């Protein structure tokens, strides 16, 4: 098997707070191959975002700390790298876009300047050439009048347009991996579809891999080839998208899928829309055993005693559950 593009092994990212140690990411394994779209799903606070930011080492340290694990980027561990070496990877090889397009751009610089900043740095171009490149990128992400719009400031763009600018900025150095951290959550439904479509289009054009972080199962079903389900800082299930939706094994995954409203069924046929009772447990002093046990309707005695390891139930389909 070819070497994976990104291979996260046993990553633990912990935070020291006044109240104690928060184990935001607690032993996560995650693999992304070249050109592959991997969906990472779970409720808010389950560690998706911290995992994503750990890859680019965008975690504030302190209070954050890598407690254990490796982040292998094309076989090279990123954790021991210093800031200067990381900066050669950021944007050039791995780029990231965030949830809030309204706050992710600096309000005091024009969007052109902000895109050009990346191009100038990583492609050794002059400011002038970089600005031309920025306009080209805006054109690529379907922003009308790109030559004029490069000089506009973020507040002159709508939310959807700003997310396009963010995508243009992230792709301006043709990275091998794009981390999209809830890229559509803050947008209107119609705009969401456009942005997902744009990401798909860009992926086909540049052939990069995408790590798509979201809590919307529908988005994952449409775009990802493989899905990783996270719960309370751990991976609970991992499967190709078809297997995950067709044969979910973990009770948490089953709950997530049942909580998607279906419009293709009439009200009579509609299975009761379920919600998962309870909330994500504190990552402060997590109980021993399966972290989902308290909310799981199948929970047994052994579930509260030891953490079940991920085991393969079908090719490429792994579950952390005793069932």
């Amino acid at each position, binding site marked *: 098997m070819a070497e994976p593009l990104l291979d996260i092994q046993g990553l633990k990212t912990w935070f020291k707070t006044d109240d104690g140690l928060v184990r935001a990411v607690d032993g996560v394994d995650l693999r992304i191959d070249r050109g592959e779209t991997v969906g990472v799903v779970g409720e808010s606070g389950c560690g998706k975002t911290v995992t994503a930011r750990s890859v680019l080492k965008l975690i504030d340290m302190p209070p954050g700390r890598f407690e254990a694990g490796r982040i292998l980027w094309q076989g090279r561990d990123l954790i021991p790298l210093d800031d200067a070496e990381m900066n*050669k*990877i*950021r944007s050039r090889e791995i780029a990231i876009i965030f949830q809030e397009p309204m706050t992710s*751009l*600096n*309000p*005091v610089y024009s969007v052109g300047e902000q895109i050009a900043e990346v191009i100038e740095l*990583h492609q050794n171009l002059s400011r002038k050439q970089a600005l031309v490149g920025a306009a080209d990128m805006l054109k690529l992400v379907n922003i009308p009048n790109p030559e004029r719009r490069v000089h506009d*400031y973020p507040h002159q763009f709508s939310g959807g347009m700003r997310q396009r600018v963010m995508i243009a900025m992230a792709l301006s150095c043709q990275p091998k991996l794009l981390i999209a951290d809830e890229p559509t959550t803050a947008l209107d439904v119609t705009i969401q579809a456009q942005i997902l479509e744009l990401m798909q289009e860009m992926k086909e054009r540049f052939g990069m891999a995408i790590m798509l972080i979201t809590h919307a199962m529908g988005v994952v079903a449409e775009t990802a080839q493989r899905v990783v389900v996270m719960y309370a800082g751990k991976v609970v299930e991992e499967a190709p998208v078809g297997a995950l939706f067709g044969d979910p094994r973990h009770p948490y995954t089953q709950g997530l899928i049942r909580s998607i409203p279906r419009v293709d069924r009439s009200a009579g046929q509609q299975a009761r829309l379920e919600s998962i009772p309870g909330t994500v447990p504190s990552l402060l002093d997590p109980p021993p055993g399966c972290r989902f046990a308290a909310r799981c309707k199948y929970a047994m005695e052994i579930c509260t005693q030891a953490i079940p390891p991920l085991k393969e139930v079908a090719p490429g389909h792994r579950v952390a559950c005793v069932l």
Partner: protein
Amino acid sequence: MSRQYIIRRLLIAIPSLLGISLVLFTILALAPGDPFEELATNPAVPPEVRAALRAKFGLDDPVWARYLHWITAMLQGDWGFSFVSRMDVDTLILQRLPVTLIVIGSSQIIAILVALPVGVLAATRPYSLFDQVANTFAFIGFSLPTFFTGLLFILVFSIQLDWLPFVYRADIDATGWQFYWEHIKQAIMPVMVLGLFQGASLVRYVRSSVLDVIKLDYVTTARSKGIGERKVITKHVVRNALIPVVTLVALQMPIVFGGAIVTEQIFRVPGIGSLLISAMLANDTPVVMAVTFVFACLVVLFNLIADILYGWLDPRIAFR
């Protein structure tokens, strides 16, 4: 930034100037007795001058007419006559104003040069030893009244160490290079006293503003670009953090002018601040009124400069 924005700011400054003039005039009008009463007992003032003065200020007219009269006279540059100094008030003030502006201007530059790096550095390492030391010094700095720091400086640098002169002299009998050196030497203490006082509160503003900005999303975006931490701070944090600081500095201006008056008085700097005090002690009312009005105008002017800076720093403002 558009020219429109600057013009709009200029237009907004006019009502505040009028408002300030109104406040000043009201104070004068409410003041008990005749503000020119002292002149009556002053043998240096001939009776016909007194009568002319009363007529010019229309002291027997209704209040609003007196205000209009006064404000037109002020606008026409007819600021009255100082009987103590025996010259026109506007000439007197124009003589003294440059010194005050130089002292205030250089002290502001010192304040910014000290406060900006210290505040930014403290904010990037919150709760570190550096931060705590900087914070403590800032507290000491703005808790020390300028008149006390001034005396302490004289005690240490003039009396104990004998490095710097403690009386400001306008008539320095030296030429060329020596002349400028003497001027700089005598300006060091007043400028430092004022600059450090202002810098101390500025450090806290800069620090808290940087702390607010540094956790915003676009700073993470900037970090993800790989441009390096130093550039992230200087380009993406400091400029944004300065926007609220500019407003706070503008709000501080009235206090800075107060500090300037005290400093000028201690070091006997011949500026408009020491002129105000000596005019008050000598009951020279036209000078007192005019200098107070000049101070008010300076505050408005500095607010205007702050507004323009604000528009330059924050493109969102200029578009509004």
